[in-house]
């Protein structure tokens, strides 16, 4: 039976089914915290624990689903292209706000985690937490963090952003739709972008831009930001 649960067919079908049901659950209940990704992850982890199936065997089967993350990120180039004209008119505003968001993200997460007494490798794993998983893991490895821990936090941050992001921006009086879309991608990468895509492809395009820009800025700047910060505080 266990070996059946580890087969690629079962793992893929099960993941699809769980996600489908989680989507239905949210549509029926309209409770935003019942985010389909979050609910699916919890159900799958519970299932694996109950049947004593190792993560590695689930991962072996689910690799095929994970693979589609790559072409899906490539496909974000289409909404991005469709908004290119609007973006070109405000290159400067976008560059500066992205730079501000990138620095604010790395500095704030490191400072708060340090203040709360997190150990060094956890703090370093948290530094790139706002950018898309592949970049975040790469940066985490480069600065001495634990890449899979980074990946987990990246997903949690993305889910949080996609659930509460637009409400937080409303409270903070970020009213401009372009600013909203952009910030969503900057703070909550592809998961936040998927939320923006659901609103409209317009929001989605600016989120994709935020996700790309913060990804590139974080990949380039995070190691230096950490180096500069370590002059003042003992990370």
């Amino acid at each position: 039976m266990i070996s059946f649960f580890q087969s690629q067919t079962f793992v893929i079908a099960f993941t699809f089914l769980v996600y489908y049901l989680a989507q239905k659950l949210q549509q029926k209940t309209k409770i935003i915290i019942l985010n389909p990704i979050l609910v699916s992850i919890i159900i799958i982890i519970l299932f694996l624990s109950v049947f004593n199936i190792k993560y590695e065997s689930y991962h072996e089967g689910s690799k095929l689903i994970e693979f589609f993350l790559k072409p899906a990120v490539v496909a974000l180039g289409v909404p991005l292209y469709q908004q290119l004209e609007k973006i070109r008119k405000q290159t400067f505003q976008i560059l500066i706000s992205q730079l501000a968001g990138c620095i604010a993200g790395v500095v704030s997460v490191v400072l708060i985690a340090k203040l709360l007494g997190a150990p060094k490798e956890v703090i370093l794993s948290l530094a790139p937490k706002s950018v898309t998983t592949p970049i975040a893991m790469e940066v985490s490895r480069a600065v001495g963090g634990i890449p899979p821990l980074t990946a987990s936090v990246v997903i949690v941050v993305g889910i949080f952003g996609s659930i509460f992001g637009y409400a937080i921006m409303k409270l903070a009086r970020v009213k401009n739709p372009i600013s909203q879309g952009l910030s969503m991608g900057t703070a909550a990468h592809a998961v936040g972008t998927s939320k923006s895509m659901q609103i409209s492809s317009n929001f989605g395009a600016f989120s994709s831009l935020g996700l790309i820009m913060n990804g590139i800025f974080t990949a380039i700047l995070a190691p230096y930001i950490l180096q500069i910060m370590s002059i003042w505080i003992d990370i």
Partner: protein
Amino acid sequence: MIKQCAIILGCLTIGELIVSLTGIKLPASIIGMILLTVSLRAGWIKVQSVKEIADLLTKNLAFFFVPSGVAIMLYLKVIQASFWPIVISALGSTVIILMVTGWVHQVLRKKGASKVSTATTHD
């Protein structure tokens, strides 16, 4: 459909090729996305030739994250040991990014807009 998939996967593959040739520290998928945008812009690829598959993929982007999210189960001990520092710093910082990026962009936009309007009134 086959053509559409070939284009998307083609961009991804060229992205991987660029990564392996240059050792650049960016994921192949991001490079592929930039390549696709540039190709559409340059007119090498028409939007209709990728639209359907691109819509399908981007609308379901969230689903593809589920397997990597399940990996959390491997780090439950590390997470448990620093649970509150991780949660508070990660979520607090996310709120800060949303506000900082949003505000900076909004303020710069308004400034840009008022510059344009004063320029036109002075004309």
